Structure formats: structure tokens, C-alpha cells
């Protein structure tokens, strides 16, 4: 990276994130001024306009891509209309050691005197909890499921290519056309549509005026700039910002700035989980790149610099901190912008191009947590592409992850999307499949499969609280077969999914009515044509997801019951329940038996893998195809983010040998340490899940660096991935274990039984080695690939 990029990158990394009260202030002002005088979509549009007209703006020294959500890099706004931070929340974020956001005393005062009094009884969070039933709240508190929309607006969508072909003046024309076409005589919704479209129009104008402020700012800075190359740059910035986003971009630079204005608009309008990102960036930018290289107006070097400056902009926007218990429990600066590379083009041809490789170089050099990146690997992708990604993966900082492009497309086709829309889509957030720019695919909450089994084993009662939150499916002692137990589990599952979806249907309407997103709606097909908001079913496709968590833990638990209780009768159900209740205290031999002498998921053993399929299918059948309120349906995903830790913390000891409070398994990965036959066995097991029925699965695999040494290490990694995808895998994340992980493995061998150490002619598991040898491997690990 060059000097400019290095400086900007370092500033981004060194700046302490802080809470900026500016947005809360402006939003509150706008609500005080307009609420009750206009329709709600118009209100939201006026709030957006007020914000963009009045927020402070800056152009940093050396910046060439401009625009921030806050007034400066790392300034993080709050969204009181969604959830309002208490003063205690602010104190907590300010004081904690890790992942602290500084909050000034002055801002705390504004929060206390102005923001809280207005939003206390008006925020969405309050509205949602007020509308939820006691039953829903009991399940929520028990940790059966989480609720995504409680602190953030529905999000999980990604931009497509339309903003590179149309400017916001063009969008205004589209909106006006749609307004003209309204049929007030026959369409009972015409008024709502009119208000929504008018709101979009206000937003389309607001984003252009916002860019104009940057033009003015750049010109102002240029006037006093002594350094002549920088002066030229500032004039260029002024030129770029006067062209986009009003018009469609003409070149590479304008294309990046176009996207960035849209990005700032989307993440300022609402806090939409921030998975919003440019999506298939290499596809979108390639025409500009190619044309300019041919014409000689751009060099590879300049393109790289622009891309790297663009990368830094993502890293400058930390995730707004949460409130209440969620704030205390979760700490992260990062959101989920996940840029896609490669994949297939709209016509089904290989999408990898020269820019794809340049972007991989950028990823390699930048090493930033945001934006996150992935490669979409298709059968047509060249090996060079996969191997270049493999070289970056091997460095061990977690990027890029790898997706199966054909499977992602197949998933969308199964959901009824057109082949073109599917090919132009990809994956976002963690692993979620979506038709970029055309779909609202909302994650509604994680669902704790393990907890449902625990409640089944207790005939409807949550043993942690003694509350009866499930239904009576029979005392397990009276169940005569594994089939009966499975049926009882399915009945409980049905009960809890009903509760979750009932709640979702209300929450979704609350957002449709009270919290439309007219700016986002402009750029998502077909909101303008339909005159409907993104949050109200305006998108071409409207999918809701419930994300299953703990498939490994529940599979192994059921395997223990099937194998040891019903088949081999090594332990009675009565004793099992007693041992679980006592958290295995005094029964280590039973726990070891369960851990070590049970067929477990992740070992390519059909006994366990068939149970995984039973649970997966039960979950799928329970959720898939249920109607949501936006004209779409529910689907399942199998991903946890970090929720497997929370879900484990509320679940008692489980039959697989897991002690109370310990994390449950994550994604579709086996239980930590349960897989003992290496990566091929894990892949075979995971591939037995019919993954096309999901909208994303997450498989994590840990590798010791020795497995990835040399050219052959990369080749074999590539083969392993290709084989998994051939078998139908959706995604694989390869984590090269750090020396820290190996140290953890020394301390807790049980959870890391799967760590393999490979040397020619010899191989062993890390935990089979003596401490001295382990130490040696740790120190070797520290000196690899860095």
C-alpha cells in the first residue's frame, strides 16, 4: 500500500470509536417538528433529509473517497427511534475495557435531558415488547429464541448493479412515473403508495443535496490548500461529488463514490444490521475498470489506491452499540458488510476477472475486519482464483471465506427466484443467500434447538427457571422408543415455532407501519414500481429466516439417548435425567462414556449423521413455507454468529456430555472436539445435510498451519474445498489456528481433540503430544506465514 493508504488505514485503526450524539439530536428535532403533521413515510423521509442537511461533514487529510455516517471516522451514532440508550448503557460502553466507545459528559447530558425524555415511550423496542405476549416473553427470556428487530431495523440486503446505471435524478423520474400511474379509483392502497413514493422522492433529492455539501466542502478546502497536487485532488473530489449520486457514474472513481454515498445513506437512515454492502463489487466495477485501462485514464495502481481508500471507509464505521443486557453480553465493533468476489455472471459465464485478483490483493494488504470478504467459487472459477484466496486464508486472520456459487444459486432457484436474479445474487452477513438489490431477506432470530430438547426431556418445563413454557409431551421415562422421543421433540418444536412466528408477524407489521425505509426502498427492486416500502413487502422477493443453532449438540445428545438408553441400555432414562440435573457431578465416567463411546456427528458415521438429518428435516418442515406478512415465506438458515455461546449459557447439561452453561455447537460444525477423523470426515458429515433447503449454512474448520505449508498445502486445501462443494456444501470458513488457540487447547484438551498435527510420514492429534512438544509447535506456529 502507498503512503496515503497506510496513513488513512493507521488512523482508522488508531482512532478510538466514540458515540456521537449528533444523529440522535437531529432525529429528535425532526420528529418534534414533523411528527403528527405528515404521514409516517413522509416523516421518515423528512427525518432523513434533516439529518443529511444538518449533520457535520468532513473531508480528512489525504482522503479521496468521502463521506461518513458520523462527523468523523469512528464516530458512531445512536438510533433512538429504534432503541434508546439509558445513561447506564452509556456509562457501561464508556467504562469497559474491551470494545469501549467513549461517551462525552456533554453527550450524556443531552441524552438525559433531550433524547431519553422524547424516546422513552416511543422507540420501536418499547413498542415491540409492549405488543409481545407473556408466552413470547417467557420463551425469549428462557433463551428459546432471540429477536433481531428488537434493537435494529430489518436489514440484510445488499446493493446490486442498478446504482452504476442510474443516478438519483433517474430514480426521481421513475418515482414520478410510478406516482402518475397510481389508480386512485380502483386501488384501495393508492394513498399509502402515494405517501411512500413521495417519501422516496424526498430521499432521492436529499442524497443529491448531501453530495453537494461535499462538493462545496472540497472546493472550500481547495481554495486554501497550498499543496498543489492535493489541491487538484480536492477539485477532482468536488467534480466527482457534483456528478454522483445525482447521475450514474462515468468512471471507476465515480462508481466507488456513488456506492459510498448510497452506503452512508442506507446506514444513516436506519440501523439495518449493517450487512449492507456493494455485493458483487468485481462485477459492478469491471466495466469501468476495463474501459478506463483501455483508454489510459486509469492505472492498476490508481485503481488499487481507490479501492484501498474505499476499504478504509468501511472500517471507519463501527457497529452502533446495543442496549441493556445485549450490550453487556456482546461486544463488537464490526458489522457484517461482506463483499463477494468471483461467482458467475448473469449469463452463467465465469465471473472472475482481472479486477477480482486486484481486489484479492487489496484484501491481502488491508487486513481489516471491515469490510469482510468472501469468494464465490463456481465450477467455472479458475484454480488460480481459489489458490490466490487460499494464500490469504493461510495467513490466518479469517478472510476470505469461501462459498459454493452454484449451491447459492440453486438455493435461490428452489425459493422461486429467476435464474438471472439468482446469478446476480450472492451471500451477505455471515453466510446468508440473497438476490442482491431485489430481496428483503430478514433474519428474525436465532432458534435454540438444544433448549427445545432440554424442555422435551423435562415434559415442557424449563429446568433453569422451573417455568412451564413448553407443552406436555410426556415424561421421558414413559417414552418407549427413540421414535417416541423424537415425536415429542417435534411437538415441542411446533409449539415454539408458532410462538416465534406469531411474534414475528406483529413485529414485521410494526416496522411496516412505523418505521419505513424510503431511502433504502429506492434502490431495491421493485419498491418504486409497487409503491411499497422495503419494510412492507416492496421488494421483489420477501423472505424471512429463522436460524437454527446447535445442530451438532442436539445430534450428539439424541445419539447418546438412542445408543446408550434405548439400544444398549447402558443407562436408564431416569439415571440420565438425574445425571444431567446434577451437571454430571460425581458421574465423570458417564460423561466420558457419552463423550467417547457414542457415534457423534462430524465423523462420517451414518448413525449420528442420520440423526442430524432427522433434526434438520424436522426444523425445516416446521418453518419452511410458512407465510410472512410481506407476501413472502419463511425459510431456515443454519448459522449462529456468536449466539451459540448465549444459547449454551441458558441450557443445562446435555446428554452429549456438555456441561451446563457451556457453548453449544456453532453453525453446522460438529461439537467442539467431537470430530476425530480429520477434515474429510467432517465435510462428509456436513454434506449429508440437504443444504439446498436452507438460505445458508456455516461450517468452520480449524487447521494447524502445518497442514497448509507450501504449494501443496494450498493445493490440497483447494481440493478439499472443491470436494465439499461437489458434495453440496454451501460455505466453509477455514481458520488457521493461532498459537493462542493452541494454548487454549493445552488447557482444555477435550474441546480440541480434533486438532491435527501433520508431518511427513507421521501424524498425530495435538492433544496427544506432551506439553513440551506442544510448546514447540506453538512457537513454530507463531513464526509462520506472517
Amino acid at each position, binding site marked *: 500500500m502507498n503512503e496515503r493508504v497506510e496513513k488513512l488505514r493507521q488512523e482508522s485503526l488508531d482512532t478510538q470509536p466514540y458515540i456521537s450524539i449528533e444523529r440522535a439530536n437531529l432525529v429528535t428535532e425532526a420528529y418534534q417538528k414533523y411528527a403528527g403533521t405528515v404521514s409516517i413515510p413522509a416523516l421518515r423521509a423528512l427525518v432523513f433529509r434533516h439529518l443529511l442537511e444538518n449533520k457535520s461533514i468532513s473531508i480528512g487529510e489525504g482522503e479521496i473517497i468521502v463521506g461518513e455516517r458520523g462527523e468523523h471516522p469512528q464516530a458512531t451514532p445512536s438510533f433512538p427511534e429504534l432503541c434508546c440508550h439509558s445513561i447506564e448503557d452509556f456509562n457501561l460502553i464508556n467504562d469497559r475495557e474491551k470494545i469501549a466507545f467513549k461517551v462525552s459528559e456533554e453527550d450524556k447530558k443531552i441524552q438525559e435531558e433531550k433524547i431519553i425524555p422524547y424516546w422513552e415511550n416511543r422507540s420501536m423496542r418499547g413498542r415491540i415488547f409492549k405488543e409481545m405476549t407473556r408466552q413470547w416473553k417467557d420463551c425469549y427470556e428462557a433463551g428459546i429464541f432471540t429477536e433481531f428487530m428488537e434493537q435494529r431495523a430489518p436489514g440484510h440486503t445488499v446493493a446490486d448493479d442498478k446504482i452504476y446505471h442510474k443516478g438519483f435524478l433517474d430514480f426521481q423520474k421513475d418515482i414520478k412515473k410510478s406516482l402518475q400511474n397510481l389508480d386512485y379509483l380502483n386501488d384501495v392502497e393508492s394513498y399509502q403508495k402515494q405517501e411512500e413514493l413521495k417519501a422516496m422522492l424526498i430521499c432521492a433529492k436529499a442524497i443529491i443535496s448531501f453530495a453537494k455539501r461535499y462538493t462545496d466542502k472540497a472546493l472550500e478546502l481547495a481554495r486554501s490548500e497550498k499543496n498543489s497536487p492535493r489541491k487538484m485532488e480536492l477539485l477532482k473530489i468536488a467534480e466527482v461529488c457534483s456528478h454522483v449520486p445525482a447521475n450514474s457514474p462515468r468512471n471507476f472513481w465515480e462508481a466507488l463514490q456513488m456506492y459510498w454515498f448510497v452506503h452512508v445513506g442506507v446506514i444513516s437512515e436506519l440501523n439495518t444490521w449493517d450487512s449492507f454492502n456493494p455485493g458483487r463489487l468485481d462485477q459492478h466495477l469491471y466495466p469501468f475498470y476495463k474501459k478506463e485501462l483501455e483508454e489510459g485514464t486509469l492505472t492498476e495502481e490508481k485503481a488499487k489506491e481507490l479501492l484501498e481508500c474505499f476499504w478504509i471507509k468501511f472500517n471507519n464505521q463501527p457497529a452502533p452499540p446495543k442496549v441493556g443486557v445485549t450490550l453487556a453480553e456482546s461486544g463488537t465493533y464490526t458489522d457484517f458488510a461482506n463483499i463477494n468476489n468471483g461467482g458467475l455472471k448473469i449469463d452463467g459465464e465465469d465471473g472472475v476477472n482481472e479486477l477480482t485478483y486486484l481486489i484479492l490483493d487489496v484484501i491481502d494488504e488491508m487486513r481489516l475486519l471491515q469490510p469482510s470478504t468472501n469468494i464465490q467459487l463456481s465450477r467455472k472459477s479458475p484454480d488460480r482464483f481459489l489458490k490466490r484466496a487460499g494464500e490469504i486464508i493461510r495467513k490466518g486472520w479469517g478472510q476470505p471465506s469461501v462459498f459454493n456459487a452454484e449451491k447459492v444459486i440453486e438455493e435461490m432457484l428452489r425459493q422461486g427466484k429467476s435464474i438471472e436474479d439468482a446469478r446476480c445474487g450472492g451471500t451477505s452477513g455471515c453466510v446468508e443467500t440473497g438476490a442482491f438489490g431485489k430481496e428483503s431477506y430478514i433474519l428474525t432470530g436465532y432458534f435454540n434447538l438444544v433448549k427445545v430438547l432440554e424442555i422435551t426431556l423435562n415434559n415442557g418445563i424449563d429446568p433453569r427457571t422451573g417455568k412451564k413454557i413448553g407443552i406436555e409431551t410426556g415424561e421421558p421415562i414413559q417414552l418407549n422408543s427413540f421414535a417416541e422421543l423424537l415425536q415429542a421433540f417435534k411437538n415441542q418444536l411446533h409449539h415454539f415455532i408458532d410462538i416465534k412466528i406469531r411474534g414475528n408477524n406483529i413485529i414485521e407489521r410494526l416496522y411496516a407501519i412505523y418505521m419505513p425505509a424510503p431511502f433504502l426502498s429506492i434502490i431495491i427492486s421493485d419498491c418504486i414500481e409497487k409503491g411499497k416500502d422495503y419494510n412492507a413487502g416492496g421488494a421483489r422477493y420477501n423472505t424471512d429466516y429463522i436460524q437454527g443453532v446447535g445442530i451438532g449438540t442436539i445430534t450428539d445428545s439424541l445419539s447418546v439417548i438412542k445408543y446408550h438408553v434405548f439400544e444398549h441400555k447402558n443407562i436408564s432414562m431416569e439415571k440420565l435425567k438425574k445425571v444431567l440435573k446434577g451437571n454430571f457431578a460425581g458421574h*465423570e*465416567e*458417564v*460423561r*466420558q*462414556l457419552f463423550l*467417547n*463411546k457414542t457415534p457423534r456427528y462430524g465423523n*462420517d458415521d451414518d448413525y449420528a449423521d442420520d440423526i442430524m438429518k432427522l433434526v434438520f428435516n424436522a426444523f425445516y418442515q416446521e418453518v419452511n413455507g410458512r407465510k410472512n406478512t410481506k407476501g413472502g415465506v419463511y425459510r431456515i438458515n443454519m448459522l449462529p454468529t456468536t449466539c451459540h455461546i448465549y444459547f449454551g449459557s441458558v441450557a443445562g447439561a446435555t446428554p452429549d456430555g456438555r456441561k451446563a452453561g457451556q457453548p453449544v455447537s456453532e453453525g453446522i460444525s460438529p461439537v467442539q472436539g467431537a470430530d476425530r*477423523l*480429520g*477434515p*474429510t*470426515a467432517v465435510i*462428509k458429515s456436513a454434506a449429508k445435510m440437504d443444504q439446498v433447503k436452507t438460505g445458508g449454512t456455516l461450517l468452520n474448520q480449524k487447521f494447524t498451519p502445518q*497442514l497448509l*505449508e*507450501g504449494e*501443496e*498445502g494450498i*493445493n*490440497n486445501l483447494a*481440493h*478439499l474445498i*472443491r*470436494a465439499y462443494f*461437489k*458434495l453440496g456444501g454451501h460455505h466453509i470458513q477455514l481458520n488457521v489456528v493461532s498459537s493462542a488457540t493452541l494454548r487454549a487447547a493445552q488447557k482444555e484438551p477435550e474441546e480440541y481433540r480434533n486438532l*491435527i*498435527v*501433520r*508431518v*511427513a*510420514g*507421521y*501424524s*498425530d492429534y495435538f492433544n*496427544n*503430544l*506432551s506439553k513440551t*512438544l506442544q510448546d514447540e*509447535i506453538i512457537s513454530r506456529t507463531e513464526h509462520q506465514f506472517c
Partner: protein
Amino acid sequence: MTTGIIFNIQRYSIHDGPGIRTTVFLKGCPLSCWWCQNPESQLSGQEMIFWGDRCISCGACSAICPSSAIQIKNGIPITEKEKCILCGKCIEKCPALAREMIGKKMTVESVIKEIEKDLVFYEESDGGVTFSGGEPLGQSEFLESLLNACQEKKIHTAVDTSGYISWEILEKVAPKVNLFLYDLKIMDSERHRKYTGVSNEIILENLKKLSSAYHNISVRFPVIPGINDDDQNIRETGEFLSSLKITQVNLLPYHYIGIDKYKRLGRTYKLVITQPPSEEKLSEISGILSKFNLKVKLRG
């Protein structure tokens, strides 16, 4: 039904031949190299090992033992080897995997079934199966049946051998092997005898004969500091190999990751711990061998 004694089947082997492989380790070896990191491979019969750090002192092993060979002393089960009949009951009962039988009698069918599990990976990577040991040719009939079955199923095979085997056996098996990984350790016969327990005439002779008929041989040279990494041995090795038709020489640097196994087996490790050879030393050896027109590759 042909059966053999296998002590490990390891999937995702990536250092024992091309691509992603499953390595099948056959038990029993005529050599007993001082540096051996798979000492459990040496004896041809079954052996029991004990993982002290896994034991939870539950006493299940002692209680089940039909020949009263196991006594618990201070919470640690002590096995009297003379009394143990290797029935495996204690292993079955031990919940903590602290007791393990090294060596399992398996049929050709059951081994093939394991091998076939990773077919998709072999296909994707041009990999296959490697028969290693011990000395896989020591169970030649079993190995031959395995090779036949693999040939039928079009699975690429590699055989990792010490070469210390009668020519008749080698000759018979050779046409069924896609790739030989042929170990060459020390050129001087006396020194060879000292460190491996056997002299090297048969090994060298077999390699000569084999390489005149087959051109699918990779020679594996373990680099053991102070034992075979001296100039003279390297040169003699280079000279000998340069007269033969072999595809490449792999240098396998010494390591001692397996020494804990000696303790578990209740044996002692003869080699006073030697540090692995330095990268400089390895490239020096590689340089010398290259001068003999040999294709040298570091590691597997």
C-alpha cells in the same frame, strides 16, 4: 477371508504421496530404527497402550479384567503384561479412551470400505491410498488383496516400504502399485545395521532391481542429524541413486513428535534427543543430491 493387522487408518494424509490420501498403516516392521516415530508399528502383534493423562481412575478396567491383570495403585491402573491376554474388555469398558489396543484385525473388505469413504477427495485431488507401516510388504498377501481391490476400483495406490523384504514378494506385488515410496537411510552397511537393526544389502539390491523394471519410485530419505546427514553418506546416496531410474528424492527432516508414544508403550527411546535439522542443512543436502542429477524435494 484375508485379514491383516492394521494399526491406523488416517484420512486427509497430505504428505504420503500426491493429493489427498488415506494412509493405511500395517503393523509389523523388520527394522527398528532408533529415530522411529511410530514405535507402535514395529511389533507385528497387538499391543495395549495406556494414556495416563486421560485416566479418570474409575476402576472399570480392573473390575472387568478376566485375568486379574490390572491392579489400581494410588488411583493408577497398573497392568501386569504377563497376565494380560489382550482380550480388549478393559478397552471396551474404559469410558475415557485411556486404554487403547494398537493393532486391529481387519478384513480386506472392511479396509476398502474405509478407503472408499474419501473417494470424492481422491478424485478431486488426484490422490488415493498409501499403504504404510511398519512394513506393509510384511503382510504381503493381505497387501496384495488390498492392492487388487484398489486396482479394480481405480483408486491410486502408493506403497511406503523399507525395501527390506524378499525380492520374490516385491516382484509379485510391484505391478499392482502405482507409486513406490522407497525409504533409503544409510549407505554404509555396518552403520545401517547399528541404527536400524538390519544390514542394507537387500534394501539396495531390491531398489536396483525394482528401478530397472519400474519407473514410479520416489525415494524417501529421512534426515537424521548426526546419523546419516554427513557429507559422505549424502554423496554415496547421491551416487547410488544417480545410477538408478527414480522419479525424485524426498528429504524428510527428523522430528521427535512421536517420542511420547514410547512411554505409552512402556519402551525407551534409544536416540538421545536430537534437534531437527536446520533449514540450511536441508538445503545443503538438497544441493549435494541435486548435483547427481536427482530431483530433490523437501518433505513429503
